[in-house]
């Protein structure tokens, strides 16, 4: 459905009233909201959706309001994150189509880009596109070239920047026009990395170019093209910055809460060639924002605050985290595109590690990537073993539904009755024999009480008798249960068993072990 809107817009954009788009979009988004994994995401989504649907009912003249709502909506969409691979794509298409429709009522500025994209790059689109689309909201009164409204991740950014400049500062616009020519070929080079788009969309501004260079979809394919384009962007920016600087300054003088403007000014300061010190202050606050695929607002805020502390913190409110993040070189750091890309990657990884820290219990004190990874590995291993153990328990419990649980036998009786008990304790034997003599490898994460039965120390001797009588199950002993059983051996009654209310004490231990199985 979204594709229809999109492809249909290739010709003259039909004057679809915004409400239709909203309705179709809302339906599309609702479908995806239902597919979203986490319920809180769906709630956010619904609220954003409702706000969005209500807004387009407003007159087209209130485009600024709409755009702001759009921005919020897109931001929320972006914040829903890429937990699903499918939904962001269609989300982005739908939202982009929605914005398309809305803008078509305003100016003809979008008509040209709508004509241009012959191919829709939906699979390439990432949730980061959502973050960029908010910038589109500002690109309203632009009659100069607007970057093509394709699913290209860089598009929204470019459009946003360009429009921001044009709408606020005439000087900026003229300089923008001058810049545009420089970027035509670059934009063509960049526009659709994975699709051979013959038409060159007119790119708006240098910062957007750089932004889009940075804003490639997360994934394997991003890094090499990213570096190339960022190099190009850098070179272009430096050449054109002097042109655009007076205009940018004028644009900056006004209090603008937009990323694009700040971006351009940032770029102007990055090579530190321009004396735009005043603008620098604006930029410091927006200095670097990581491309947050999860769009964790809190994280973005933290990144921003650390940037603000770097330079003279501007009183400008922090950018909405949904805006596309441009990586720019910090002061005193290498501006090499490679290192920039590397920095982006590192920050992404550290972001993920933070998330994982919250998931893995007991990881708060651990610092450093290697130790964290070790903990994560241990935790995942323990979880997998637990699953196997529990499924094994389920298998045995299901077959022993009518076993006599009350027959608590003393330990010696247990030993003498080893024949009758072999079956019951069988599942533990092979692994028990396997782990004999091995060192325990206790995991911190195994303290959730769903673990092993309390196999206490008196039990090992009886096992010796059994091992040679019982067939071995090599797959059983593939190490899955080793640690688990070992822990059971190593620990005594103090080990809390969340699911087992029995009290392991004295002579009951043996019988309890039998019950556990």
């Amino acid at each position, binding site marked *: 459905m979204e594709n229809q809107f999109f492809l249909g817009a290739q010709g003259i954009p039909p004057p679809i009233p915004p409400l239709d788009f909203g309705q179709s979009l809302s339906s599309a988004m609702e479908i995806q909201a239902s597919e979203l*994994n986490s*319920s809180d995401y769906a709630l956010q989504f619904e609220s954003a959706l409702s706000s969005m649907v209500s807004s387009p009912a407003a007159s087209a003249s209130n485009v600024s309001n709409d755009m702001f709502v759009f921005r919020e909506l897109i931001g929320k969409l972006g914040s829903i994150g*890429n*937990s*699903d691979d*499918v939904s962001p794509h269609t989300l982005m298409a739908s939202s982009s189509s929605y914005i398309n429709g809305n803008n078509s009522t305003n100016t003809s500025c979008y008509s040209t880009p709508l004509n241009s994209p012959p191919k829709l790059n939906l699979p390439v689109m990432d949730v980061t596109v959502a973050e960029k689309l908010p910038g589109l909201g500002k690109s309203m009164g632009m009659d100069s070239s607007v970057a093509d409204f394709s699913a290209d991740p860089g598009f929204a950014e470019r459009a946003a920047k360009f429009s921001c400049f044009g709408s606020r500062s005439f000087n900026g616009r003229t300089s923008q026009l001058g810049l545009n020519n420089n970027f035509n070929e670059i934009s063509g080079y960049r526009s659709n990395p994975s699709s051979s788009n013959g038409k060159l969309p007119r790119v708006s501004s240098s910062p957007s170019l750089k932004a889009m260079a940075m804003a490639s979809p*997360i*994934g*394997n394919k991003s*890094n*090499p093209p990213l570096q190339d384009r960022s190099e190009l962007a850098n070179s272009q920016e430096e050449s054109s910055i002097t042109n655009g600087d007076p205009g940018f300054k004028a644009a900056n003088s006004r209090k603008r809460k937009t990323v694009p403007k700040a971006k351009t000014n940032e770029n102007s300061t990055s090579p530190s060639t321009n004396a735009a010190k005043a603008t620098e202050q604006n930029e410091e606050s927006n200095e670097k924002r990581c491309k947050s695929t999860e769009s964790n607002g809190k994280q973005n805020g933290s990144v921003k605050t650390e940037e603000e502390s770097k330079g003279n913190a501007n009183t400008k409110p922090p950018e909405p985290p949904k805006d596309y993040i441009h990586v720019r070189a910090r002061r005193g750091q290498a501006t090499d595109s490679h290192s920039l890309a*590397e920095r982006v990657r*590192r920050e*992404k*990884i550290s972001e*993920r*590690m933070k*998330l*994982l820290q919250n*998931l*893995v219990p007991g990881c708060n004190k651990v610092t450093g*990537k*290697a130790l964290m*990874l*070790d903990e*994560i*590995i241990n*935790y*995942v*291993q323990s*979880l*997998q073993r*637990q*699953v*196997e153990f*529990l*499924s*094994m*328990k*389920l*298998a*045995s*419990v*299901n*077959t*022993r*539904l*009518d*076993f006599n649980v009350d027959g608590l036998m003393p330990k010696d009786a247990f030993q003498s009755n080893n024949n009758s008990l072999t*079956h*019951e304790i*069988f*599942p533990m034997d092979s692994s028990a024999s396997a782990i004999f003599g091995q060192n325990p490898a206790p995991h911190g994460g195994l303290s959730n009480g*769903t673990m092993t039965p309390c196999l206490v120390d008196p039990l090992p001797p009886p096992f010796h008798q059994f091992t040679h009588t*019982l*067939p071995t*199950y090599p797959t*059983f002993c593939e190490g899955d249960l080793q640690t688990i059983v070992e822990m059971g051996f190593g620990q005594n009654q103090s080990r809390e068993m*969340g*699911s087992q209310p029995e009290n392991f004490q004295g002579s009951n231990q043996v019988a309890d072990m039998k019950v556990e199985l």
Partner: protein
Amino acid sequence: MNPSSLKSRFTTRFLRALTKINAHKPISSSSPGPGEIFQRYRRIKVAADKSMAYSVRSRRTWSRATLWRLRTRSPRSRLATHARRSWVKTRSTRAASHGKEKKEDGGTVEAEELRELVPGGEAMDLCNLLDETAHYIKCLTTQLDILDRQECTSREL
């Protein structure tokens, strides 16, 4: 409980599979042989993994890998595993060229281990691998929760 949450999806599927397994193999009053228990255990484990992977569908790489693995087990194992190995090799080399050019990252050794643990993790760079790991952990904990409850209730019966 959210009707469409991961937990509910997994629970329904898993219980369905469990009932199927129980129906297939009648519960014998006498203690079943160890082989039977083991077979049953395998079936239950496979059911748990499969129902979890199906609950996630193909949204995640690890679920896709798990489903692939489950589908192409013993019957067509040789051909399937060979195909999978070659595919994984190409993907991993590509990922290696991307993510491991600069070994200063220091996490490559553990990353390898993590790749082995998380299904389908061989062909992902570290960034995506961590993503997958987070989701995988979340699903594993859900799975454990359900299994645990199931085990409790069936034990009390």
